[in-house]
């Protein structure tokens, strides 16, 4: 059964100017995201995977319209439609102030649980702060909500008086999750929420997120480079390469029957825990990822693709339906 879309990204492009020379003029640009379309369905988890620098995190930040704060010169185009009770809004068309209204509905969990919490505020203050702006709760109600949230993420209500440095990495990420949940959001963008944690803690945090997803009816965009984590949590997966989506489809399909040559290579690189299962075929890609400052013409993957043809340089391949609900951006492969 196909759920309705709660968030739609249409043809998103994000370019960062590269300044150089003595006068710091714009000498080039990095096409971090080069025409990405995504949809997030209500209640699902969309896994977004790809190598470092392929634009995963940039998509996350562009969706919550926060890129401009850290890099004012960034050039963003495309549309991000958020479905709200009052209809759909294009988040990218909003000014900073207009955007604030919708921030309560779409929240982000950040990668680094150490630096993303303000070290001069108590945990209670950190979690409480969004409530000041998005709700009309009074002091007691807010305290109650903070205590409730802390318990939901597996911490104790009494810990709200402590400062972030008094917590471990896993606990801090739980605080980050509690903070993101404080305004009752519908969508969570989780930008590599577990990559800074060690493996045993990763499992705890992932399980927590899954429990909370059911309880709060969340739709999650889960950005990660760890494929086994993504397989565990995602109902659908989108594989990115160099600012484009290479393949997207149901999680188990992508994981077990990848279509796109890049996904095949990527998934064959996942280490198997069982040393006896050595017969798995590994596809070794040659060369490095081309820099997004100077992308190859046509298909971005053609420089490393084992089945590349001369025609690949001519046009950028579009996502084609290969299997039910399963798309791949390569005209030379099929789903069987």
């Amino acid at each position, binding site marked *: 059964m196909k759920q309705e879309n709660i968030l739609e990204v249409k043809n998103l492009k994000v370019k960062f100017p590269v300044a150089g020379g003595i006068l710091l003029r714009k000498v080039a640009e990095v096409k971090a995201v080069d025409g990405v379309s995504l949809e997030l369905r209500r209640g699902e988890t969309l896994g977004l995977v790809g190598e470092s620098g392929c634009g995963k995190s940039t998509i996350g930040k562009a969706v919550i319209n926060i890129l401009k704060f850290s890099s004012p010169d960034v050039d963003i185009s495309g549309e991000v439609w958020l479905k709200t009770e009052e209809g759909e809004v294009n988040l990218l068309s909003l000014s900073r102030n207009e*955007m604030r209204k919708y921030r309560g509905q779409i*929240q*982000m969990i950040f990668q680094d649980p150490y630096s993303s919490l303000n070290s*001069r505020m108590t945990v209670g203050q950190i979690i409480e702060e969004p409530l000041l*702006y998005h709700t009309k709760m009074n002091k007691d109600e807010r305290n109650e909500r903070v205590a409730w949230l802390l318990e939901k993420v597996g911490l104790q209500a009494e810990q709200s008086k402590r400062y972030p440095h008094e917590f471990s990495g896993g606990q801090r990420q739980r605080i980050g999750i509690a903070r993101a949940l404080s*305004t009752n959001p519908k969508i969570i963008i989780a930008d590599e929420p577990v990559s800074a944690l060690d493996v045993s803690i990763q499992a705890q945090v992932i399980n927590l997120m899954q429990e909370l997803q059911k309880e709060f009816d969340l739709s999650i965009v889960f950005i990660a480079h760890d494929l086994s984590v993504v397989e565990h949590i995602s109902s659908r997966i989108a594989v990115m390469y160099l600012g484009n989506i290479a393949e997207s489809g149901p999680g188990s399909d992508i994981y077990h029957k990848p279509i796109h040559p890049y996904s095949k290579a990527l998934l064959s690189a996942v280490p198997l825990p069982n040393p006896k299962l050595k017969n798995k075929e590994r596809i070794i890609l040659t060369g490095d990822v081309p820099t997004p400052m100077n992308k190859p013409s046509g298909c971005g993957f053609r420089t490393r693709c084992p089945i590349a043809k001369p025609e690949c340089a001519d046009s950028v391949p579009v996502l084609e339906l290969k299997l039910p609900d399963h798309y791949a951006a390569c005209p030379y492969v099929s789903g069987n």
Partner: protein
Amino acid sequence: MILQVVPGGPLEMEIMRIRMGGAMGEGPSSTSSSSGISIPESAMEEIKKFYGFDKPIYERYIVWVGNLFKLNLGKSYVYAEPVWDVITSRFPVSIYFGMISFLLTYLVCIPLGVYKAVKNGSTFDIISSAIVFIGYSIPGFALGAFLLVMFGGGSFLDWFPLGGFRSNDYDTLSSVDKIKDQIHHTVLPVISYVISGFATLTILTKNSVIENLSQDYIRTAFSKGISEKRVIFYHALRNSLIPIATGLGHFLGILVAGSFLIETVFNIDGIGLLGYKSIVQRDYPVVMGLLVINTLLLLVGNIISDIIYAIVDPRIRFK
């Protein structure tokens, strides 16, 4: 210590005075021998005893430290008053200027620094940086002298008085005129006081805020959907205050101690001018007294810095 060795101390001055007196008494006929006049050995001893120079330097120091614990700083040679009274009578003047320049510096620099950080790279940022750096490179006393020539009624404009803390007829003025007169006398010295302090604090604030604005938790704060003002002033500025707080305590020392040269240029009878005169006149007890007080202020200032640290940074608070 160094001051004690420098010639021109009270002993020599006294000797000089006696010689001069002797020369005048003898009249013009004996000018040739005036420099050769010998002071009786007994008189020398008496003078030495009066100033306490009959004992060796370490003994004098021990006596001085002993008195210090009894809160007795000795008596000024020049003013013939207890050193403590001499110094405290100048405190209000220096504190007055210190407080004004202190408040002015912080009230201007912190907002300016924050604004420059937010608008980093803009024309306003570049121009204001140029201005504060030019200000930084001008010594306060030189600017003071320049301002006096320009606006002090000398060759050019007669806008401000030529120094002094207040007019001579201050006590006879009405209260409104008193305030006017006070402000009139305050403008030029305060400009000289603050001019070089602006750059340090502004750029410190700016860099500190820029650094904090690029931190991850600022991104978190923005994503929470709180207002930009709150992000900048509550999240970023609070974290940027740590280096600024360090300066706060040290500022106390400068605040109370005044500035030797600026007070001298403007002839303001504060701690700075007192210190300057005392050194020139070799008024050892006053110089030593000032040294003690400055040292104490510095220590107190450091403690205040530490307390402010704990206020702005909860991580270093004791439980």
